[in-house]
């Protein structure tokens, strides 16, 4: 996969890339995810953002020899992702990508997202499970639950309405981004509604957001946090957030 790195016009300096992995109580799967990223993205630096885990996530990740940023208490996925973007921005990485720590996201697919960003075809690239309908039907690698399917279609509808751009996998946690996105997300990122609002925000700021069809796997460890009732609330909240987001100023100058 190292061959995918961009040969920027005539020279072959590797693009400085950070892959960060937000993790909350993922001690069972974190080591395997790190190994996967190392195998498929050998040139990238790895940062694990431990979102206040109560298990041995930090220790396991550290044992793998990667950099670990441990948040002192759980603050939600958005805050963890923002930590990654902040680090990538400050350390001067040209590209960054993130994937879930539960083993659902194959690192080989992340490499494909990064290739899109490195080739400057988009500012933000989302890995979508649903982009390619044939692949969804053919593979039984990934089987979403009913509540997740409902949530996905509701978010898809409203986000498409809000951004006038077609999105299929709005809650995907597999993304690659360049510095423009880093500077936006390290300042403006909803702490508890990371995935959808960030897409809306990026599109509103005029960034090029693109979806790439990817293959995802069943969870390797841990359990999904979504119970039916929570899902319903999650969906409701998401719609409200999207609605409010439409009234936000386009230029991100509000200081948080």
């Amino acid at each position: 996969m190292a061959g995918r790195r961009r040969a920027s016009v005539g020279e072959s300096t590797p693009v400085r890339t950070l892959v960060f992995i937000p993790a909350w109580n993922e001690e069972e799967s974190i080591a395997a995810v790190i190994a996967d990223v190392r195998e498929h993205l050998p040139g990238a630096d790895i940062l694990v953002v431990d979102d206040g885990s109560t298990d041995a996530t930090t220790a396991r990740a550290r044992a793998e020899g990667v950099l670990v940023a441990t948040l002192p208490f759980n603050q939600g996925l958005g805050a963890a992702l923002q930590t990654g973007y902040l680090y990538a921005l400050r350390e001067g990485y040209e590209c960054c990508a993130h994937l879930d720590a539960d083993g659902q996201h194959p690192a080989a697919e992340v490499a494909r997202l990064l290739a899109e960003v490195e080739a400057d075809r988009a500012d933000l690239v989302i890995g979508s499970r649903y982009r390619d309908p044939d692949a969804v039907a053919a593979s039984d690698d990934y089987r979403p639950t009913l509540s997740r399917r409902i949530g996905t279609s509701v978010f898809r509808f409203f986000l498409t309405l809000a951004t006038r751009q077609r999105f299929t996998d709005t809650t995907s946690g597999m993304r690659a981004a360049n510095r423009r996105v880093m500077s936006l997300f390290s300042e403006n990122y909803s702490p508890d509604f990371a995935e959808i609002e960030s897409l809306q925000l990026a599109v509103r700021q005029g960034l090029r957001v693109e979806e790439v069809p990817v293959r995802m796997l069943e969870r390797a460890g841990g359990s999904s946090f979504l119970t039916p009732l929570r899902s319903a609330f999650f969906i409701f909240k998401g719609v409200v957030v999207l609605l409010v987001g439409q009234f936000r100023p386009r230029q991100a100058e509000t200081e948080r």
Partner: protein
Amino acid sequence: MSALTLAAAKTTVHLTSQTRIVAAVLAIAFMLLILELIRRDRLQERYSVIWFVAGLGMLAGAAFPGLLKLVAELLGVRNTNVALFSIVLLLLLGLALNFSVIMSRQAAQITRLAQERALEKARAQAAEDRNGGGRVGSEQARPESERT
């Protein structure tokens, strides 16, 4: 029907001197409590202003009962009791909203603080591992040959 409206119109606030004294004492006690909380560093001055204003409002209402009636008439509310409750309710609503705004700002500040601290510790760890010869983190530290 007409008897009912008549009865409603009659139930304006009629403060006896006794209730007025009680209200004034309560208002003064309330403001003293605020002062005491500031003195003991349990309340910051910038959050106390609004409570002082509330205390002064209570005191003014107790000292000049005509004031409330005047406000009610200005608002076009016939029943002074309704006017009183409405005003208080709106003020409390505004106060609660004000606290939510403050809370949101502080939550964002806490998050950023936690992120800064986490990254600082990660950097310290990276520096430590580098000294120990570990293969971690910061790209600059790694030799060029190892990258490809």
